[in-house]
């Protein structure tokens, strides 16, 4: 219940805005275009949808992971999101089709995430100002550098 040491994580946007929360999924660092998704169901479909590749997805719905993860619902062979931002990830799994928890799935797939931040504030910020972002955690294990074709986001940093 209490924050364990090295549990902290931070999401930093290109304009310098920071959101401090706790680590979720794999530990590490990731870079991507921060976007918000408003669907209240279907997180497994969202995570495995290839069109989210390169994007750090912010779920506006606060509770994610309630029904765990199963083998029928993935939209492709792997999770594609570059990072995952959730307010209240589920502690347990409750669904008859679940084969494992979302936490395990994210960790095993090396997806770096952050939890416990004000996702609505973040969403409104992204809406009002455009987006770009990086997520990092104190556990310094940097991922591979961006591919050469990546360019900085439309808005220059402040």
């Amino acid at each position, binding site marked *: 219940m209490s924050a364990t040491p090295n549990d902290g994580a931070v999401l930093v946007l290109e304009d310098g805005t920071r959101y401090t929360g706790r680590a979720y999924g794999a530990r590490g660092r990731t870079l991507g275009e921060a976007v*918000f998704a*408003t669907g*209240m*169901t279907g997180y497994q479909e969202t995570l495995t949808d290839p069109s989210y590749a390169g994007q750090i997805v912010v779920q506006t719905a606060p509770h994610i992971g*309630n029904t765990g993860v199963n083998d029928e619902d993935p939209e492709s062979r792997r999770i594609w999101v570059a990072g995952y931002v959730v307010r209240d990830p589920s502690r347990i799994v409750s669904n008859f089709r679940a084969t494992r928890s979302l936490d395990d799935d994210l960790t095993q797939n090396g997806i770096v995430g952050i939890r416990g931040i*004000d996702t*609505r*504030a973040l969403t409104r910020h992204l809406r009002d100002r455009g987006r770009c972002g990086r997520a990092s955690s104190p556990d310094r294990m940097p991922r591979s550098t961006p591919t050469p074709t990546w360019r900085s986001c439309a808005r220059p940093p402040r």
Partner: protein
Amino acid sequence: MCSARRVRVILVNPNPATIMTDPDFADATYIEPITNEALEAIIAKERPDAVLPTLGGQTALNAAIALEEAGILDRYGVELIGAKVDAIKKGEDRQIFKELVLECGAEVARSHIVHTLDEALAAADDLGYPMVVRPSFTMGGLGSGFAYTHDELVRMVGDGLHQSPTTEVLLEESILGWKEYELELMRDQADNTVVVCSIENVDPVGVHTGDSITVAPALTLTDREYQRLRDIGIDIIRAVGVDTGGCNIQFAVEPSTGRVIVIEMNPRVSRSSALASKATGFPIAKIAAKLAIGYRLDEIPNDITKVTPASFEPTLDYVVVKVPRFAFEKFPSADATLTTTMKSVGEAMAIGRNYATALQKALRSLEKRGSSFHWLGEPAPKAELIELAKTPTDGRIVTVQQALRAGATIDELYIATGIDPWFLDQIVLINEVAAEVASLRPFDRALLELAKDHGFSDTQIAQLRGLTEQEVRNVRWQAGVRPVYKTVDTCAGEFPAYTPYHYSSYDLETEVEPSAGRKVIILGSGPNRIGQGIEFDYSCVHASFALHDAGYETVMINCNPETVSTDYDTSDRLYFEPLTLEDVLEVIHAESQSGQLVGVIVQLGGQTALGLAKGLEAAGVPILGTTPSAIDLAEERGLFAGILHDAQVLAPKNGTATDAPSAVRVAESIGYPVLVRPSYVLGGRGMEIVYSTPALEDYFDRVRSEAMIGPGSPLLVDRFLDDAIEIDVDALYDGSRLYIGGVMEHIEEAGVHSGDSACTLPPVTLGRDIIEQVVEATRRIAEGIGVRGLLNVQFAIGAGVLYVLEANPRASRTVPFVSKALGIPLAKAASLIMVGRSIADLVHDGLLPEHDGSSVPLDAPVAVKEAVLPFKRFRTREGHVVDSVLGPEMRSTGEVMGIDTDFPRAFAKSQDAAYGGLPDSGTVFVSVADRDKRAVVLPVLRLTQLGFDIVATEGTAEVLARNGIRATTVRKYFQGQVVQPGDPSVVDLINEGRIDMVINTPSGRSARADGIEIRTATVAADKPLFTTIAQLGAAVASFEAHNRAIRVRSLQDYARDRAERAERAAAAVVS
């Protein structure tokens, strides 16, 4: 909204308490009974083009079908819009509905119809145990239930086949314990269909959705499962043919296989629609009305975002929890087990950024001791709690929480209750956080934030930490831990929201926009319950309108999703928050950051709001209107006695006591019978008429567990005035002038709670002299207390002497009734007085008519208010209806009004509206207490002249015979007696439908126990019942009225009459 398209709107509803029947809201408002007769008269007068029945619940739908079947719609060329009759029937006829669902590729519960026991046993092989047994065409669901074993099945089917007039029993597979969901959908004439809201019932199938704890959005479905429900829902709404409007569909999902069964659908706006509207910000009823007159969803803008259309599906970034409010304490013999028959009387809703927060906020919104989770003492043994949790009842969720505290596992509770493990784990989480708070961890910001993000109140934290609520709050404020306010915006932040509909959360960013206005905060009345219903909401809403028009910025705080006060467009800002001191103080703090807070109104939201007055004042919050210390002058016995003394007004002899021995001393010195009641209660909770010392001691025994009486809250003991007439007055006072809203005469004698009693305005049997005394007494009391705003005073006249029973310096529940009967906007005026306007100003500005309600001209109409009583809903464990004798504790759940040129006509309408009318002929059963025998003779004589036959018990029959009235004698009913064929008791006759009306006044001495069986049988048989001679007198007067054609007039017509009358009077003065 309809006037935007220049549609003339005519509304019909006999309920005066609702905002709907405000004459401001329609072109013609008819407070008339919903019967074919009245509706036809209205249709004939108004010649509407169409009738819209889908916004008035089952009542409206049934009325529409009745009109259609009687050919009335055809006769006048009126179209039915919103849903066609066959669409309505498709939804309601079980057989047609079943076929329709199957055609859509979905399932209903499997069933078999059997006519013999052998067939039943064969069906058992298919359906398995437990199964549902439903004998066909028996009355009131008699004989239905669950059969868990072979033997039970044999017994129930045997009985059922015997009871059923067609020797037929329906056996259905049991879906008890399955997960239960509801979808609210809307469809327009272009076949655009959207799902507005998904609702998951925390209590599984077996508990009516109205009695379940529910959550939006659904939280334990995968997308695949959700889409399946959505697709079925859309197919059904299309197949049923709801072509313009809303629809509610209920599903059951088997938790281990995902199998989906459609339980039922309602092709109309329903109780859940209100919840769905508040939960999502999507105003279902408003849009349904537009769809009904031909708009498409994509043509209607989303009010909240302004730039997107209504043809979308709202998405939530928060969690909404609804918890039901029960009133079982009012019906102690009723079986409090929750079943598929709805028993709750109201509900509270809460919004939070996670389930734990929303749940805890909702529980504390119920304002009921014991509703919230607690960690006091040691929990009872785990096995005991698990066993208790198996039965769904009021407060079960707390039992579950305690069981988890006691070491029960999620699995054990899942098996016992059927509640999904995810929800159970959330309670485990809450218990874990509680353990953290109670631990030796420093009481710092991090700990407070942890507790707050799981919905813990300052009170709960104080309890866990061994501190006072105020100490916790001080630490919290010092640490800077305060809530922020988010917005319900229908789109999870995708688009900016322009409507300030807020809820609190302990998050990073607040969305409360600074504003420069002068703000008035209005406290609502919380969840509906007996004694505090929508009548108070009427006053709050009107205050909001009036203050807004006067240039103030209005801020509403309430937690009731069923009210107009929680519509986002009623006030300038809406905070959907619990009405507790903590939550209200936080809203006040947030709103005080900008603009100017003029003050808070606490006198319009019933006892809920009033109860916060002292706490708010102590926190330095400006209270508008009558001050808390003035309120005390009225509520505190000793102080009020002083006021009455100075005013030279009499009160019945009275005293107070804090325990049984002192109460007995007081009662014996005053003289029995006495009326006892705990102080500071609403709705007469705990009130009783006590006839002797043993009975008084018995009363103390019974109320001990509820801890209502103690040193700080004494018991009030008053001389009870037998045979007195009760009078109610609603008035305004501004510090110098009294303005009477209305003087109401009760039809039942004093001793029946005024909320349960029928009353008339203006009084019909009181002389002018008495009324003048009443007005003067009211004025002195208002002055003595120091009222600024509304005042309600209750009087009684016994043996020609006027007594004051009580005074309430706040809005009363009769305010809407009075306002509509006389056309005086009392609540609006009160709110303006509270911000400093004078009555003279308001009269000058035309808001208040020049002549107040103390003298009503002879050609003005008479209005009768009748209470609606819920006795049929509440049955004992054996299935009997609970006793329906009215007493000092209020039990009605609502009211209707009848208005016409004279009392008999108005009374007849009120009976039609409340009970579907009185019979024109038939057999009347009479059995009255000795003291009523003299008074009953004339009314019964009149009944015989009108053609009724009389049946009576021996004693009453004798008296009637001596007075020349023929009556058939019938045996009384005694428990345990042998039934002789050919010599039925009166209860047998009632059950057989051979009695059409019952007059039974209980005998005073024996605590009204006599006649319980007779009365309960009458209510179960849906026949009119009179338990006082006064009611009977009114009824007889109204029989005459019934023979004449009904006349209908709208409130606007009455307003025009008043205006004309005023002109004539002015002209007369001039000439």
